[in-house]
């Protein structure tokens, strides 16, 4: 059954406290047993400026946004034109605004929402020390039927250390807001029963990648900050030392990826995180990882491109560079988590693959996932075995670092192992590691480096699948759009249109047989992705047999692709 949920946008500039209110609302909902998702839209100003907290709350898990916002609470209209397109409304939406902030702008009025005035600022002024965002919180929780006790609890936790008075003031503001909640007809959250303590998490995609990598064994991180990946690095800087690891801030991305390669060569699973511009700087050294067979994980959190592009907004346009951006014939691994929850799993799996295959692995997250917070089921602890194949004593006799093996994987000696000395090399080499310009050596090493990726058993993890696996209509997407695609498939099924959904977690090596098997019998295919050039479509078309009819639903950021659009595209394609 499609997901009954309520979607709320809070907007305001500078001091309105929109983000705090959004965070508290999400946590309160979580406390009350709901699931939820909150992302942010920020203006270009470094501090202050317009901002929006975009929430979707539900009693069922939510992986992505809904089609429209049920409620827009505008503390003010600062620069709304710049991001109104990110806040779809329709005639069922309710817009609550402060009449003291001027008239409702045309872009908001245009889709025909119900407009409701609430003098938020004035109400707040009525309470000494009261803040308008707390008034707003009271208003919203009441309107959507969220348990007041959970909100109270969140306020106590947040403000407790400021003393009882601060809590009281806020609570008065909340109650004043609740009293102003006289609109009806808004969707309300079903009564949820609070989950068992610890059984659910509140986490961002970026933190989740950090945790997954840590679970996967990463103990050395080399870092250079970049939006929207910095939080992965910051989370690891704080948390890695707790498990005996270390993070080093580097002078640039050339250094960070090379330090990670050094750490990895020394035997410690290593990673870095970056975004498009940084990834571009890293490709030469990632190629070194391929040639020297040194594992390394690069988490790339995608943002608007090309060039510096739109650093704060989401897009899925680094697929090309991730898959094809290395010079020479350089097979490697590219993965993409399919939701915030899945960031934990996919990051852990990516570390496992890099280590097992002695190969660089690029994990493609994006801003929409990385900088959003979700309330999710606690991710299962998965135990991947089979790490890096370290040389055993027998291997160390006449040790050959790049020995030709059936599965393409050569046992690696780590510094400190007597007899395992070798030189890891980015020059083409004989099996011993000695540089060679010979055609035969080149051929056998190229074969081996491809073979190890092709022969590996990726199991069921290669993709998320949903819907009807026999449906004639197929849908392929990846990354943060998977949630919307899943919603769309559910809605289509309810409307009697069966669809099979395939969201590959493993983008490279392209899983030719698996994809073709998953598509077998499908006559039509829709490929959904958030970029301008339909990069996934060209990647797939370049490698696999696609159904006779293929259509694309692709759009660059920052506007995400919503379930309803996918439903429309599927319906049109089916007709």
């Amino acid at each position, binding site marked *: 059954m499609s997901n009954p949920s309520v979607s709320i946008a809070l907007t305001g500039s500078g001091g309105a406290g929109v983000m705090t209110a959004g965070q508290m609302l999400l946590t309160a909902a979580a406390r009350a047993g709901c699931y939820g998702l909150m992302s942010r839209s920020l203006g270009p100003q470094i501090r202050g400026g317009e901002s929006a907290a975009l929430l979707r709350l539900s009693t069922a898990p939510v992986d992505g946004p809904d089609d429209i916002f049920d409620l827009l609470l505008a503390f003010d209209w600062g620069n709304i034109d710049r991001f109104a397109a990110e806040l779809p409304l329709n005639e069922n939406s309710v817009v609550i605004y402060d009449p003291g902030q001027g008239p409702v702008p045309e872009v908001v009025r245009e889709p025909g929402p119900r407009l409701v005035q609430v003098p938020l600022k004035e109400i707040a002024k009525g309470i000494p020390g009261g803040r308008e965002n707390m008034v707003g919180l009271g208003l919203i929780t009441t309107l959507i039927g969220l348990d007041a006790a959970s909100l109270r609890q969140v306020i106590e936790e947040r403000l407790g250390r400021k003393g009882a008075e601060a809590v009281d003031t806020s609570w008065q503001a909340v109650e004043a807001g609740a009293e102003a909640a006289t609109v009806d007809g808004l969707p309300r959250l079903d009564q949820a029963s609070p989950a068992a*303590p610890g059984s659910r998490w509140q986490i961002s995609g970026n933190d989740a990648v950090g945790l997954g990598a840590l679970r996967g064994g990463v103990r050395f991180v080399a870092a250079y900050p970049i939006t929207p990946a910095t939080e992965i690095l910051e989370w690891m800087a704080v948390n890695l030392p707790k*498990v005996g690891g270390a993070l080093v801030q580097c002078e640039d991305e050339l250094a960070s990826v090379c*330090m990670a*390669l050094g750490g990895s060569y020394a035997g*410690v699973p290593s990673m870095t995180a970056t975004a498009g511009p940084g990834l571009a700087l890293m490709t030469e050294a990632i190629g*070194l990882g391929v040639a020297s067979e040194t594992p390394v994980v690069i988490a790339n959190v995608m943002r608007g491109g090309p060039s510096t592009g739109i650093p704060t907004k989401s897009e899925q346009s680094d697929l090309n560079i991730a898959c094809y951006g290395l010079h020479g014939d350089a097979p490697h691994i590219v993965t993409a988590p399919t939701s915030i929850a899945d960031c934990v799993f996919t990051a852990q799996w990516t570390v496992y693959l890099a280590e097992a295959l002695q190969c660089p692995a690029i994990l493609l997250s994006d801003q929409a996932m990385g900088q959003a917070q979700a309330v999710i089921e606690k991710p299962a602890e998965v135990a991947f075995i089979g790490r890096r194949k370290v040389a055993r004593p027998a291997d160390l006799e006449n040790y050959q670092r790049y020995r030709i093996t059936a599965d393409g994987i050569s046992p690696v000696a780590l*510094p400190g192992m007597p007899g395992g000395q070798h*030189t890891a090399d*980015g020059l083409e080499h004989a099996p011993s590691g000695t540089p060679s310009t010979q055609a035969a050596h080149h051929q056998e090493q190229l074969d081996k480096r491809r073979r190890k990726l092709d022969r590996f058993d990726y199991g069921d993890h290669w993709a998320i699948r949903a819907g009807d696996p026999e449906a004639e209509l197929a849908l392929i997407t990846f990354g943060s759009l998977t949630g919307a695609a899943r919603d769309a498939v559910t809605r289509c099924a309810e409307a009697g249109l069966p669809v099979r959904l395939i969201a590959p977690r493993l983008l490279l090596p392209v899983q030719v047989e698996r994809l073709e098997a998953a598509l077998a019998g499908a006559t039509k295919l829709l490929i959904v992705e958030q970029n301008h050039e339909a990069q996934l479509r060209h990647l797939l078309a370049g490698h696999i047999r696609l159904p006779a009819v293929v259509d694309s639903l692709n759009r660059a950021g920052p506007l995400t692709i919503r379930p309803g659009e996918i439903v429309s595209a599927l319906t049109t394609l089916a007709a």
Partner: protein
Amino acid sequence: MSAIDADTAAPVLKASDYKSDVKPVWCPGCGDFSVLSAITKALAELGIPPHEAVVASGIGCSSRIPAYTTVYGFHSVHGRALPVASGIKLARPELTVLAAGGDGDGFSIGGNHFIHACRRNVDMTYIVMDNAVYGMTKGQASPTTEPDWTASKLTPDGPGISAFQPLEMALSAGAQFIARGFTANPNTLAHLICQAIRHPGFSLVQVLSPCITYRPEQRAYKNRVHQHFGHPEPATDRREAFARLMDDDGFSLGVLYKGSQPVYQPAPAPSATPEEVAAQFAIC
């Protein structure tokens, strides 16, 4: 650096134990042969077992050196010897880590890592085989090339810009052990390298290493080099070191400066399991 504890009862190691049987691609007479000898002698003198040492390098004639030793090696990409070496040392502090390469590798494309490695002060030794030319790519000007050197087609009127001063840059950037050696006498050079390895923190050894193919005039280096930067003992004060450098003709040999800034080595003490760490995300 447990490996060099004097009281470890390890078998006595000879310089030859550190030389691999891979034949260098170097031109006969290239200065880099001496550097290879000196490194092997130094490691032997320090008694570091070959499997506990790593040499990381970039790309260039000189950067080929790791494969000619019997220690662990990483022949990386052009300009990145230092970050690779830093990663190795930071991840595995017990290893003895050397970085090695050329003047182009280290001061041109690798210049940023050079200055930041000097600052960062990770405990490793960087040996730059300085021949004031790009040997590997057949003779172009490097940062240390004289502005009026006209033998390269790429800069037929000479590079026209003043030469990079490795020691001065290292001192400004914060390096804690700064020395210059020459290839004429591998024993002397080995001794210098020993001191550099022993010094805690980042050590730079600029080695004047003639390229007899593209800079045959460098054979005359042997007539120009001289002992000391004006004083037999290294300076331990930056002001003094700068003063000595102002009088340096580029051919003073020995240790210029020894500082004592703390070594950079994050040493986390594990106190939690990943699952304990993960508990921060639980909603309770």
